[in-house]
Every structure is written in structure tokens, then in C-alpha cells.
């Protein structure tokens, strides 16, 4: 497979997200090494790897929560170096956290309100009317199946519902690229189906999605392309079925 560069030389669409030689260390520990990844607009990319392989660290480097020492991240043709996390969110990068981080003293509706007030309003340069915000919050919560809990506080939610809230809040920022970091862990089969169809719908509307997940059935049915991280290195990238047949991936995933 030919790596799609950011250049337009081959007539290929420029990548939405372009990571080149990204490296991240924690002291002497190399968390990520020479990661290059190119995600064209509209892609559905599955990112898998064993625990501790650096998936979340990669997300943190993309979103600006952590600073990478080496390499560059470009988003929509723009280098993200030196941009703070909130600026990257304004550009259209949105993520859900692996361990849900709700705003504990705010109701669910108000949790959704934060990205509406600070990202969507900033991007379009004007504020929503009060009723518009209410509607938007309600609609987003209904999409993830939390519509009847809009006035509740996050402490009333189960872990699973918190994951849904996490996803709804990431979606509220109206991203171009959504990174869902283990949004489905612990969900039942039908709930996984719900979330997947939600992500499919978003993707049809033009949102590029990176799905980080351990539930292989979900990853395989969702992804058009699969990347595998093992010990901070990308060992495979391509069509999901090809990647899963790769002996190196099998070794890393299933053991000898």
C-alpha cells in the first residue's frame, strides 16, 4: 500500500491527519517511536494494540494533552506544533477519554453545553440562542440514549452511561475528526450496535473517525482500515482482513 502523502502530486486527496515520525518518551521509557500515520478525510480507521502499546499516548499527542518530542502532526494541512489542546479542538479535532472525565458538578445537559459554548460558538463566531443550546444538548443526549437524564448529574450514571456521555460531549464539538478511545468497553451487544450505528451515521455525514477498541467484532465491522500498535511501534496498517492475517499481528495479539 502506498502511503498517501500530504502532497497532491498523485491526485490523491490531501490527508486530514498526517503524522510523521512521531516519538514520545517518558524519561527513559520510549512510549512511541517513529509513528507515521496518514488519515484521509472520511476514513474509518481502527487503531488496535495490546494494553500499554501506546494507543492513548498517541491520542494524547495528537490532541495536545501531551507534547511529542519528535516528529510532527498536521491536521487539515496545518502543523499543530505549539497549539494547545483547546486550539486543536477548535480546529476540529475531538476525542473521548478512555476513562470517562465528566464535569461532575454539572448536569448532563450542561456537560454537553461546554463544547457548544466554547468550540462551536468560537468556530462560527457567534453564540447560539438559549433555546438552540437546549435543543442541541437534548438531541445529542438522545443520540447516545441518555435523553431522559439530561437534568441528572454524572454521579447518577453507570460507567457505561458515562462512556456514552463522553462520546456525546466529543460529538458536541462538531469535529472533523473524532477519536473514540474505547467508547464501547463494558457495553452490551445491543449497546455496541447502537454506538456503532451512531458512528456510521456520523461518518456518512463526513466525520472522519478513529476508533480505538479492544472489542474485535466492533473494530472489524466498523473499520475500513486498521492500524496496529505494539510497544510504541506501528507494525501493520492496511485493509482489516489483511492486517489480521499478518503473522506479526497474530504473534503480538494472540501470543505464540
Amino acid at each position, binding site marked *: 500500500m502506498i502511503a498517501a502523502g500530504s502532497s497532491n502530486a498523485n491526485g490523491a486527496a490531501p490527508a486530514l491527519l498526517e503524522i510523521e515520525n512521531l516519538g514520545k518518551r517518558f524519561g527513559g521509557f520510549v512510549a512511541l517511536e517513529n509513528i507515521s500515520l496518514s488519515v484521509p478525510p472520511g476514513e474509518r480507521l481502527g487503531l488496535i494494540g495490546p494494553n500499554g502499546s501506546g494507543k492513548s499516548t498517541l491520542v494524547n499527542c495528537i490532541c495536545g494533552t501531551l507534547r511529542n518530542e519528535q516528529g510532527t502532526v498536521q491536521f487539515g494541512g496545518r502543523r499543530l506544533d505549539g497549539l494547545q489542546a*483547546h486550539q486543536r479542538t477548535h480546529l476540529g479535532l475531538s476525542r473521548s477519554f478512555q476513562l470517562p472525565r465528566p464535569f461532575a458538578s454539572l448536569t448532563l445537559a450542561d456537560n454537553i453545553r461546554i463544547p457548544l459554548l466554547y468550540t462551536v460558538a468560537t468556530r462560527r463566531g457567534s453564540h447560539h440562542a438559549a433555546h438552540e443550546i437546549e435543543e442541541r444538548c437534548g438531541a445529542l443526549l438522545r443520540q447516545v440514549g441518555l435523553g431522559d437524564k439530561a437534568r441528572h448529574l454524572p454521579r447518577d450514571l453507570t460507567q457505561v452511561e458515562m462512556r456514552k456521555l463522553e462520546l456525546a460531549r466529543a460529538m458536541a464539538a462538531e469535529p472533523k475528526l473524532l477519536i473514540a478511545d474505547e467508547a464501547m468497553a463494558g457495553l452490551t451487544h445491543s449497546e455496541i450496535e447502537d454506538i456503532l450505528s451512531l458512528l456510521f451515521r456520523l461518518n456518512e455525514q463526513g466525520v472522519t473517525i478513529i476508533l480505538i477498541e479492544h472489542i474485535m467484532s466492533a473494530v472489524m465491522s466498523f473499520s475500513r482500515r486498521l492500524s496496529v500498535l505494539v510497544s510504541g511501534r506501528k507494525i501493520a496498517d492496511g485493509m482489516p482482513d489483511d492486517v489480521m492475517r499478518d503473522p506479526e499481528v497474530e504473534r503480538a495479539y494472540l501470543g505464540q
Partner: protein
Amino acid sequence: MRTPVFLLIWLVICAAVFAAALGLGNDYIFFAGYVVLQYVVLGTAWNILGGYCGYVNFGSAAFFALGAYSTVAIYRLITEHEFYRMPIPVLMLIGGIVSGIVGFGMGYLTLRLRGAFFAIATLALAVVLQTLVVNWDYVGGSRGAYIIRPEQIEPIGNYIRYLFLIMMLLAVAAITIARLIEHSRLGYGFASIRDDELAAEASGVPTLRLKLVATTISGALMGMAGAPFPYYIGYLQPSSTFGLDYAVNSIAMPLIGGTTSWVGPLIGALLLGSLQQIATVTISSAVNLLIVGFLLVIFVIIAPNGIIGLIHTYLQRKPEDFVGRRRVEAEMPGQAP
């Protein structure tokens, strides 16, 4: 309720309080009331950073003292150069600007610290500023400075009444600002910072900028509260102006009242401030901090969300149905992970 209506109601209340105090015919009520109102401002100002954003500031006394010492510096200038006597509101504005600038600077230097570390840094700021003032001869150094205040002011009579009136108006301004923030985009941003800064950034909240806004507003209000103080006390001394009382009271009052809405610091300051004034007259002034400590221990144990928290537990209501939004966990601000 719309802000102009809110403001109007409070101005009517103020007029009533002032008229009632005049009716009592004893000027001591103004003297004691001034201190209580000063704490309303300090508590409200502290709460903008401490309650809304979750950053505990132990340096309130320093901001208060900065306001007071800007007045002293200007007073010296005036008496030396025979300037036109500056009215107190102008002095307050200057004190507010000075403290606001220092608040901004402190914020920039320390806001990368969280929790206890931020609190320690603010305490250090207070010590540094006190050392500076003690060694600055122009404002009296460690000897302190005398300010001679006019006996009377037309048309309300005794000057203390005038100071009381001004502090009352500042208190109204402070709670109006706090309430405005609470119900605005800024307030939601502050709340997201208090709850989870990482998630706030990921939602697009420019956390550092918002925290600087909070330290600046909070510092400026404290400075404004301090600016008339030399005229009130007559003799300003670094050790008392930078005293522990101000730092402890401005934290204790919002905590006892409840930290997530403008009502909390108001109730806390009125209650605790009045209690202290009564104790000063009936027992002794030394018992003040003891009262604060005692109440604080009780509240941390039985009502960690303050009086407002108690009220809506009693009413068995959902927290969001009550005034504004509030924090619900049983934790002190600034201890977010």
C-alpha cells in the same frame, strides 16, 4: 431575574439598611457594619477564583493590603504636593487596578500549579509583598502610616457613614459581578475548569486564559475592598493589614456559606462577620479567629457544601433546581484530581 432588576432590588435593600442604621442613632453600627461588608466583598472575590474555578488562594490579605497601601502611597503624594484631594471611589479604582495587575501576574506565574501547590504559592506571594512593604519607607515601612480622615462629610454627617455607604455599594457590585459570571459562558467555563481541566481543554475551553480572568477579577475586587481601609482604620500597619485574619476569613466565609453560587459568600460573610463583631464587643477581639476555626471544623464535618448545601438537603430538592449550579461532591475546592 435580569441583572438590572437584581441590581435595583439590592440598591433598595441597601437604602433600607442605611436608613435603618441611621435610625438607630449610634454610629458604632456603621463602624462594625463596614467590616462585615468588607468581608462580603473579600469572600465574594475569593469565591470567584476559589469556588468557581477551584483554585484556593491563601493570599487574600496581600491583595487587600495592596489596595490599602496604594491609598497610603497616594495620600503621601497628596500631602506632599498639595494635590486635589482624591475621592474614595477614585482611590478604590486605583487600588483595584493595582491588585488586578498583581492578580494577573500571580496567575501567570502560578496557575500551572494545582491544589495545595497553588495555595502555597499564593501564601508565598503574600509574604513577599509584606516584606516589600515593610522595607518601603515611603508608605511607612514597619512603623506604619497615619491617615487623617475628615471628621464630617456633607450631607450625611460622620465620615464613617460615608465609608459604610461606599463599602455597601462595592459589596452590591461584587455580588452582581459574581452572579453575572455564574450565569454566563464564563461561569460554565470556570465550572469545567473546577471539575476537570483536561476535559475542559478537550472541549475547547482555553483554561489558562480563563484562570487569568479569574485571578484578575478576584484580585481587583480584593484591592478595591482594601483601598478605603486606611481611612477607616486611621493607622495602617503591615503586620495587621497582611494579617492572617483576612486570608482565613475570606476562605472560611465562602466555605461556610457554600462555594458554588454568589449566595454562599454573602451568607457566610454576613453570618460570620456579624458574629465576630458581636464577639469583639461582648467578649474580646482575640476570640474572632477562634470562632472561625471552630465553625470551619463543624462545617467541614457536618455540612461540607456549606449552608446552601444544608438548605437543599433539608428541602430534598435536586441540586440544579436551587439557585444556579453548585458543586455536589463532599470535597473542598482545589482538590480535584
